[in-house]
């Protein structure tokens, strides 16, 4: 089976929390990723949260909820928020849901 459940690597540099997600984001793994990012966000109180999606290989609408939820959480604690590296089908999903009008996308974005 060629699926790889999503995982997240967290790193804080210069008061920016970078959450680099790899693999396939679906409902099964979204909850764990959400909890890991939220715990780091609350403990580090960074100036900015960046979700790096360069290495996300699949995302269904569970990913939309995950990203919108982190955006909302960051807003609540006064942390700037951006998504980096959303490409291809992943970016298409954000556009379809209208999140491109709410969330800042940075970096290597290919439609």
């Amino acid at each position, binding site marked *: *089976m*060629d*699926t790889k*459940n999503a995982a997240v690597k967290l790193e804080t540099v210069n008061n920016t929390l970078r959450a680099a997600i790899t693999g*396939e984001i*679906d*409902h*099964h793994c*979204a*909850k764990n990723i*959400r909890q890991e990012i939220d715990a780091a966000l609350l403990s580090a109180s960074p100036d900015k949260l960046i979700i790096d999606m360069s290495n996300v290989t*699949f995302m*269904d*609408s*569970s990913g*939309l*909820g*995950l990203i*919108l*939820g982190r955006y909302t959480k960051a807003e609540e604690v006064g942390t700037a928020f951006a998504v980096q590296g959303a490409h291809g*089908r992943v970016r298409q*999903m954000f556009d*379809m*849901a209208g999140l491109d009008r709410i969330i800042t996308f940075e970096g290597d974005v290919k439609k």
Partner: protein
Amino acid sequence: MKKSANTLKLQFCSLSQNESLARSLAAAFVMQLNPTVAELADIKCAVSEAVTNCTVHAYRDAVGPIYMTMHAYDDRKVKIEIRDAGCGIPDVETAMQPLYTTDAENERSGMGFTVMDSFMDGLTVRSKPGKGTKVTMMKKLSALPR
């Protein structure tokens, strides 16, 4: 639609780890027809949405059977039926509206049916409260290059 050239019938539990299993099996079945990368991605995403709906909404805190039947036709159409015997949907039309969700607290986006509708070429949802829901999706694959 011509006679089905191949059919695969599956039954699995409404466990969240089966979401990736279901979309991988759908991709493996459709690969026989040499789809494009984009077509394969469309089908995987639509199947993932439909199976997630069964896990999250149809059976909620319980575990029940999900029935997935896939047909491949000679005219390069693929039909995928995903059925549950869960709680059913009282108002299908409302449930299919973009951003509509009954599970906002768990960060469900309410985009599942919109994704299925956008990525497939046909979507039918039949449901009876207390009986279950059947989602039927159709995809017409592009002609093979000569």
